[in-house]
């Protein structure tokens, strides 16, 4: 399995071109004030309407920085063996004692990631300051981030994948990611309950008499998932075997018809981890609304259409607000309750670890917001982007709760984007009227105030 590496990420939308990153780099690397020597170069863009050149997404700054490519062309054209991809750090290392200053690497690189330092006559390139890049903390606008999520992937890659290799999910579905990661993390000593929904639809219950997982899995009714799982767990305890009782359920199965057994198990403190994959509807059966479907959203049972002759009402998507399931679970005083998003894997992993630990002694509830490319109508390559926008607009807030420490935010958003940034990323909100958008924005604010009160902490906005 290939390795994954940490990386410096640039968000041009947040950049104002102040150049602090370049000053920091020039200072740390060369003890110089000359920002032209910086290994990270931020460029103002002056030709946004050039013919034949895509105008880009409204940003006005561009970046030239070594990408530490996985298949680096600079290395292939170096005649002196002076450049190598370091398989430990992922950095393209430059060995000055071997380099002959021929500049061929600058021909190989199409990203201007290695170039001539005129002060020394030698090439120079970013080495990520050995994993502690000086440019990142120097950025006053959070436009630069050092992404360290790779550690998770490297670690997870060594664990056993407990799902069947092929799954029948829709293209671009992030539930597969969630299922594989969760099961890998929870490990083989697990009994898994997957009530009707996308997860068994994708294959957890298997085909032709074989299961889709390498752990015991069962397919309860929508109504009795938590009850059955509680019984299974108790039986294992009785025979003295330590297992993790894990449910992966949809939002319908948790918040609608399965709610009473879930509520009962939580109230009794059954020892299990109940994970909800919230795609805000009954997506597996044809995209019907659930109590977690947000206001205004199109579903097949909250359609959008013009009024017929003589009729007044115009169908404009769902007319009720979503139920805040995780807050309801907080009110069960479970041992652990958290919200999570696949766009923030490090956060998700930390919560998964805590939830697993809590399930040893009591009820743990993990609510993962999971955009649905088919039901929400967005391009299949946009899942992470939609998930991220939900968090960046405060449409979704990431927090965790324990009875001892109360509720606190894990990813506070300092300057939330307007909710339209989220809404316009998908088709199910395409029809919204300004009034509906105002309603949703108002709901986001109300929700934030509500959770902030519980958190006794400001979330921003």
């Amino acid at each position, binding site marked *: 399995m290939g390795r994954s590496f940490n990386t410096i990420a640039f968000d041009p939308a947040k950049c104002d071109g102040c150049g602090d990153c370049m000053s920091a780099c020039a200072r740390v690397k060369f003890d110089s004030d000359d920002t032209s020597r910086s290994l990270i170069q931020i460029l103002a863009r002056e*030709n946004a309407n050039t013919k034949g050149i895509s105008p880009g997404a409204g940003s006005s700054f*561009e970046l*030239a920085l070594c990408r530490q490519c996985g298949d680096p062309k600079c290395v292939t*054209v170096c*005649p002196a063996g002076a450049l190598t991809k370091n398989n430990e750090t992922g950095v393209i290392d430059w060995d000055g004692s*071997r380099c002959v200053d021929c500049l061929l690497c*600058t*021909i190989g690189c199409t990203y*201007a990631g290695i170039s*001539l330092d005129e002060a020394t006559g030698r090439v120079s390139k970013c080495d990520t300051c050995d994993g502690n890049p000086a440019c990142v903390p120097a950025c006053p606008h959070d436009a630069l981030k050092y992404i360290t999520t790779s550690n998770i992937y490297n670690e997870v890659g060594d664990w056993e994948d407990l799902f069947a290799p092929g799954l029948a999910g829709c293209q671009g579905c992030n539930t597969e990611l969630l299922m594989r990661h969760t099961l890998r993390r929870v490990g083989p000593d697990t009994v898994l309950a997957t009530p009707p929904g996308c997860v068994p639809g994708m294959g957890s219950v298997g085909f032709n008499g074989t299961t889709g997982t390498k752990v015991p899995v069962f397919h309860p009714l929508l109504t009795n998932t938590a009850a059955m799982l509680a019984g299974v767990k108790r039986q294992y305890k009785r025979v003295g075997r330590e297992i993790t009782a894990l449910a992966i359920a949809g939002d319908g199965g948790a918040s609608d018809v399965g709610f009473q057994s879930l509520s009962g198990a939580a109230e009794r403190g059954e020892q299990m981890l109940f994970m909800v994959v919230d795609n805000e509807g009954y997506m597996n059966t044809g995209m019907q609304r659930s109590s977690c479907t947000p206001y205004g959203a199109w579903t097949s049972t909250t359609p959008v259409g013009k009024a017929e002759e003589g009729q007044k009402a115009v169908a404009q998507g769902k007319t009720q607000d979503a139920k805040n399931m995780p807050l309801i679970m907080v009110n069960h005083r479970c041992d652990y309750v958290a919200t999570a998003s696949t766009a923030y894997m490090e956060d998700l992993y930390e919560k998964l670890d805590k939830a697993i630990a809590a399930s040893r002694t009591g009820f743990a509830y993990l609510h993962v917001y999971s955009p649905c490319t088919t039901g929400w109508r967005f391009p299949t390559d946009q899942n992470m982007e939609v998930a991220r926008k939900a968090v960046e607009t405060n449409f979704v807030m990431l927090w965790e709760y324990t009875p001892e420490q109360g509720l606190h935010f894990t990813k506070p958003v300092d300057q939330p984007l307007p909710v339209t940034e989220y809404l316009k990323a998908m088709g199910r909100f395409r029809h919204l009227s300004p009034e509906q958008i105002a309603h949703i924005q108002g709901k986001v604010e109300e929700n934030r105030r509500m959770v902030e009160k519980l958190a006794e902490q400001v979330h921003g906005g």
Partner: protein
Amino acid sequence: MEQTQYLIVGSSHAALEAITAIRMHDTDGSITLVTRDPHLPYSPTVLPYVVSGRSAPENVYLRDAAFFDENKVSYRPGVALKALHTARNVAELADGSEIGYAKVVLATGAAPAIPPIPGIDKVDYHVLRTLEDAKRLNAAMKKSQRAVVLGAGLVGMHAAENLVKAGANVTIVEMSAQLTSGYFDATAARLIEEAFTANGAKIRTSSQVTWLAADGDDIVLTLGDGTTLNADLLLVATGVRPELDYLKDSGVACDKGILVDDRMRTSVANVWAAGDCAQARGFFDDAQVMNAILPDAAVQGRIAGMAMAGDPGVADYVGGVPLNTYHFFGRHAISVGSSKVPDGGVERTRFDEASGRHLKLIMKDGRLLGIYGVNEFFDAGVMAQLIVRRTDLSAVQDRLFEQPLTVGRELMSQIWR
């Protein structure tokens, strides 16, 4: 007889890239590499630095022995391909043994082209293509007082600079009217010439050697105008050409090199070729050209490897684009693309005498065709992309001419970020 899935002939840039490409797609198919060179892989391009003493010969290898183990390559240095029997899919080696192959890539590079000067077979001259050549030249250079370099291409100029710095009186003899023609334009060539003369080298352009003779330890060169030169060291650097004797009777079509299509396939089934030995399509016109430069060898080797392994990701060769970088006496020169100004094309130049900065841009219909600079740094890789993508630069050409570095980067991050 030994049998292999992939036979790689040669062990330099094109060959190494082919191995990488094959292993990305086929982790298990057997690979055998045969190469004439006895050493671990190294690049001919590094040899001028071995000559100068800057790079120690044992410190220039591109790969260590572990590379071949890790990639499950049966590595056979020091044995040349002698004949390719394509009807049987068998390679005959210089030691008499045979290897059967399913697929073979010829990456045997080029060798110094020796001009047919009367008497050349009677004198002891140097060439520069192998590590042995470099070590021998390095030793001879230390003793040389009067050196002559035949040919003012980059190989000759590099060596001439080394000889000058080692203290010899150096004369460069070049047939054409301009130094480094084919690589750099007239202004750049003048700057290069001035740097050499300022450092004591003599340059005789438009000169041809008509006769060579030995005189004791000296070599006497007779030039076209009748004058003679005495040298204690003669380096012949008059270009390169592939040695393709091993293809006799193979049916593989050759012109100046081995003719290949855009996937580096030769005219014969199961045979690919890449690098300096191959003659592939040029970018600027569709004629098959010899573009004997390192970056092209790497690209072609990669394509050949992907094609051989059946990698569905393989893309057609975009065509050879001339690309060169050159250092001389502390200055640098970069050339990317075509030096020809076509009908309807425009050439823009600027030159600052004080800083020695020189820049030339060749454009047509708003598209970049070539960019040349001396002491003016720009990202050659970015410029090459603008050329091969035929990006319409009409709206930015003035700025590009003023600031090729920043404007190139701006365009890069918008177009192929």
